[in-house]
C-alpha cells in the first residue's frame, strides 16, 4: 500500500517537474498554456455555427442600441476596413464582430472588464460585399445589429 502511494506521489512530482521545466525553458509561456482561443468558433463557416460555438446559442435580438460608429458603406480596399461598435446598454459582457460572407465569419470577440465602456474599434478584412454583424452579450442575452458593406476589392484572397 505505502509503496503504491509512493509511486503515485513520485509520478506526480515528476510530471510537475517536467511542466516546470517546460515553463522555464520558455517552451510554454503561461499565457499560451492557458489560452482558450476558441478554434471551432473561428473555423466556423457560417454565422450560426460561429455563434453556436462561441455562445451555445443563435438566438439574437435585434437592437438599435448597438451602433457602428465607424464602418464605411463602400470599402474600396477590403483588406483594411475600419469598424467600431458602440453599445448604449448596461452590463455589456462582450462584443463580437462577424462578417457574414467571409470564408470564416467570426473576425474577433472582445470580453470587457467591469470598468470598460461598451465600445471597441479595430480594422477588419472583408472578402466581398457582406453584412457586418455585431453581437453583444449583456445580462446573459445576445443582441445584434448589422450593416451592409459594399466591397470593391476583396481582402481575403491572393
Amino acid at each position, binding site marked *: 500500500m505505502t509503496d503504491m502511494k509512493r509511486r503515485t506521489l513520485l509520478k506526480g512530482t515528476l510530471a510537475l517537474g517536467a511542466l516546470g521545466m517546460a515553463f522555464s525553458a520558455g517552451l510554454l509561456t503561461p499565457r499560451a498554456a492557458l489560452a482558450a482561443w476558441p478554434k471551432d468558433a473561428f473555423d466556423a463557416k457560417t454565422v450560426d455555427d460561429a455563434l453556436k460555438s462561441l455562445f451555445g446559442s443563435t438566438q439574437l435580438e435585434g437592437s438599435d442600441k448597438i451602433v457602428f460608429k465607424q464602418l464605411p458603406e463602400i470599402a474600396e480596399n477590403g483588406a483594411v476596413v475600419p469598424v467600431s461598435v458602440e453599445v448604449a446598454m448596461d452590463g455589456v459582457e462582450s462584443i463580437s464582430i462577424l462578417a457574414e460572407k467571409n470564408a470564416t465569419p467570426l*473576425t474577433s470577440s*472582445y470580453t470587457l*472588464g467591469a470598468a470598460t465602456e461598451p*465600445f471597441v*474599434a*479595430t480594422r477588419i478584412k472583408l472578402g466581398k460585399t457582406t453584412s457586418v454583424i455585431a453581437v453583444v452579450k449583456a445580462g446573459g442575452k445576445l443582441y445584434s445589429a448589422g450593416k451592409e458593406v459594399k466591397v470593391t476589392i476583396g481582402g481575403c484572397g*491572393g
Partner: protein
Amino acid sequence: MANKMRVVAKLAGDVTTVKALVKHPMDTGQVKDKKTGELIPAHFIQEVTCEHNGKVVLSALWGVAISKDPYLSFRFKGAKAGDKFTLSWVDNKGQHESAETVIE
C-alpha cells in the same frame, strides 16, 4: 521585436482612451506567395490582453480577418494619470510581445 508596438492611453475626465497599433503580418493562410506560388502559412495574433494596474480591462480574441498591422481602440474608467497600462499579445505560433505605458 522591440518597439514594434505603439500604445497610447490618455485620460480625459474619468475615461481612459486606449489606442494601440501592433506590427504583425496577420497572414490568413489563404494567400499565395507571388514568387513561389505556394500558400503563405497562417500567422496571426489570437489573443490580446489589456491590463490597467495588473487588472484585465479588455481581452480580445482575434482571427485571421483582423487587418495586417492591427489597430485596437477602447475606453475604460477608473484610472488615474500615472497608472500603469499593459497590452500583450500572443499569436498562433506562440510568439508574444507586450508593451507597457503610463496613462497620461
